[in-house]
């Protein structure tokens, strides 16, 4: 495959960004949207070609552009590396990216900064492609930081709103904490291996040359990298930015904060699976954190009333399940869930966007309801995706989630229980969302009701495509015969042997339990919101455990108290005490000098005679010093 075409695929979103950023205003909205979408579609087409090519040959492609820098024995190339994993990620990043671009052309139609929105989206796709195709950790870091920047820009896209700005800042700062982990991990890996090129790293670890003597240090490295992943992929303890990130426009939430960027952490760990396999302790930590995150986020999701917040917590919860799978070294299953999740979560977000679009920016589910009859396509796609995420067979979510739970069952029963509970809760809150939004009567204002309408075709087409994918996406990795496992086999070092896919009685029982769990969740939601027609009360009326959930376990408040307040106090201490002290000392000298010079000024009174006398006296002193006093 021609390397120039691949580079073209990488660079064209950047070109789209430059055109839209520099000339977007002059081009007009429709042309700007066309350029933004077309560039991504071209990338997508090339990605498909790449995917087919790699699938056929099974060989990775490495494009070496130039040597970036070298320090003694350590050198870093500016190079790209396309293997099976990269191809897969490129495929769904550009694929879903194209659909969301198309969707945005009508969703953002009213916005005055339309061209800027498309510029940022293109830039995001570019950085995401760099992230997944970099040939070493530093190249990945370029993309890693780039997508963080785009996320920041897009969350704060409506920057007139102060709260949105705060949300974008929060996302950025939380990500910085994780990025530090990423960097520390990179540095330790450089120290251990002397290289950060993925291929070389893999060769070294497979041969086991250096890793064995640095076991503890390697654990620190992988832990630090995992901290990086928790920042980007919104895991405990750094997940709090993701729900706030819903301040951005809905397509952004769908693309960045559900389908692509938040999976970067999973991509990174899968990319370095050979390193993580060497540190089982860290893997345990990952699994536990993933499980707890999944459970906590799902339980918070039960009590949220903002349609996008529910989806955000759902995303965090699903990401937690993925990390759980990674913790059990089941990388291909995590990747599988990433893909299916990308389909149905993007569909859900776009569907919610369609709803929000229809009722003019209203996001509170308590003011929705009965939208089924107004928005048939949106409802149908939303239903499919909701069934998929709840884990109803034969939709995609069932397969991927079931695989994760099965792996958990084989490895760690408590985590299996936690994961199952999270799944049941997922089914409950997703159907709660569905019922509150689409069933019963409309609860909004009359004016809103009059304007209810189905979204235009450019918005429904992506929905339909994504719903179909969400429905059939499970086919790529059927239990027993997994195409994905075979495809990813070259990337993952210790896969097939440790996770045999034989289907026994246990597996069928587990599947049954999962389905029953999902049905229980759905049933509860049906009972509560359809039969009894309950509507969630206001936040200040909830009590007990519900109150804790509605307030998101007070995690933001705890962070406030533990980290922000002491920092503020420290800042206040420095400002009020130390600064006063320092400025006091400095000002003392300044005052002293000023006073002395003020007195000295009086000597210079303009009397030339005095000057002359001073001059003569000075000369005499100099002569005295030079010739006499010696």
């Amino acid at each position, binding site marked *: 495959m021609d390397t120039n075409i691949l580079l073209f695929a990488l660079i064209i979103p950047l070109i789209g960004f430059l055109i839209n950023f520099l000339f977007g205003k002059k081009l007009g909205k429709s042309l700007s949207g066309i350029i933004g979408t077309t560039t991504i579609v071209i990338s997508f087409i090339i990605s498909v070609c790449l995917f087919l090519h790699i699938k056929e040959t099974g060989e990775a492609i490495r494009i070496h552009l130039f040597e970036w820098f070298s320090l003694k024995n350590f050198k870093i190339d500016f190079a790209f590396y396309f293997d099976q994993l990269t191809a897969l990620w490129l495929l769904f990043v550009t694929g879903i990216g194209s659909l969301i671009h198309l969707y945005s052309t009508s969703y953002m139609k009213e916005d005055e900064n339309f061209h800027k929105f498309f510029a940022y989206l293109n830039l995001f796709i570019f950085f995401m492609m760099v992230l997944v195709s970099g040939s070493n950790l530093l190249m990945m870091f370029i993309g890693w930081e780039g997508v963080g920047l785009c996320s920041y820009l897009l969350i704060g896209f409506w920057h007139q709103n102060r709260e949105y700005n705060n949300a974008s800042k929060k996302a950025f700062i939380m990500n910085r904490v994780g990025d530090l982990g990423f960097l520390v991990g990179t540095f330790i890996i450089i120290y251990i291996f002397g290289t950060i090129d993925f291929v070389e790293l893999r060769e070294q670890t497979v041969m086991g040359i250096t890793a064995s003597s640095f076991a503890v240090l390697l654990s620190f490295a992988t832990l630090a990298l995992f901290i990086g992943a928790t920042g980007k992929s919104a895991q405990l303890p750094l997940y709090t930015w993701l729900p706030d990130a819903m301040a951005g426009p809905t397509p952004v939430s769908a693309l960045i904060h559900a389908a692509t960027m938040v999976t970067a952490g999973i991509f990174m760990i899968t990319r370095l699976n050979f390193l993580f396999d060497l540190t089982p302790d860290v893997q345990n930590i990952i699994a536990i954190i993933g499980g707890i995150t999944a459970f906590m986020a799902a339980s918070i999701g039960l009590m949220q009333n903002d349609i996008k917040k529910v989806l955000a917590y759902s995303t965090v919860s699903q990401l937690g399940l993925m990390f759980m799978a990674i913790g059990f070294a089941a990388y291909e299953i995590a990747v599988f869930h990433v893909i299916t999740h990308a389909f149905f979560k993007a569909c859900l977000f776009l569907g919610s966007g369609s709803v929000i679009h229809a009722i003019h920016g209203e996001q509170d589910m308590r003011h929705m309801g009965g939208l089924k009859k107004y928005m048939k396509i949106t409802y149908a796609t939303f239903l499919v995706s909701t069934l998929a995420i709840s884990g109803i067979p034969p939709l995609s979510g069932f397969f991927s989630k079931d695989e994760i739970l099965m792996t958990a069952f084989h490895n760690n029963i408590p985590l299996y229980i936690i994961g199952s509970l999270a799944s049941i809760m997922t089914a409950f809150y997703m159907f709660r969302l569905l019922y509150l939004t689409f069933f019963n009567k409309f609860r909004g204002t009359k004016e809103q009701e009059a304007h209810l309408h189905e979204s235009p075709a450019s918005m429904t087409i992506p929905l339909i495509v994504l719903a179909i994918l969400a429905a059939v996406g499970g086919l790529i990795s059927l239990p027993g015969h997994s195409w994905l496992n075979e495809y990813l086999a070259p990337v993952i070092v210790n896969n097939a042997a440790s996770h045999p896919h034989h289907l026994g009685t246990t597996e069928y029982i587990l599947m049954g339990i999962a389905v029953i769990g999902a049905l229980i969740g759905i049933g509860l939601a049906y009972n509560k919101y359809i039969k009894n027609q309950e509507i969630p009360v206001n936040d200040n009326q909830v009590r007990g455990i519900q109150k804790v959930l509605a307030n998101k376990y007070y995690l933001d408040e705890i962070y406030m108290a533990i980290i922000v307040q002491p920092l503020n106090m420290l800042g206040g201490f420095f400002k009020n005490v130390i600064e006063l002290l320092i400025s006091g000392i400095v000002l003392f000298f300044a005052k002293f000098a000023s006073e002395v010079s003020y007195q000295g000024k009086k000597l*210079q009174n303009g009397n*030339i*005679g005095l000057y002359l006398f001073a001059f*003569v006296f000075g000369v005499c002193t100099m002569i005295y010093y030079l010739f006499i006093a010696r």
Partner: protein
Amino acid sequence: MENVLQIIGIENYIYLAILLFSVGVFGILYRRNAIVMFMSIEIMLNAANLLLVAFSNYHQDPQGQVFVFFTMAVAAAEVAIGLAILVSIYRHIGSIDIDKLKNLKG
């Protein structure tokens, strides 16, 4: 031919130059008329010149006397400029009393 330094000695010229220079200093501090102060400066310059010539004789070296030429040229230039400035000042404030020139202060 006999040289005067053989009879009198260089020391006496030095003392004479010192005294003349001191007189110049005295004049500068004593008078407030700018022109007389100029004259005092000329006296000081001449004290230096005298010493230069005396030492030129003592070392039998023409360079000292060449230096006197330059001093004279500089003195001429200085007087020309200085007097022009004085004229200009006189036009502005109607006096060349240095006690009236009090603008030079901080």
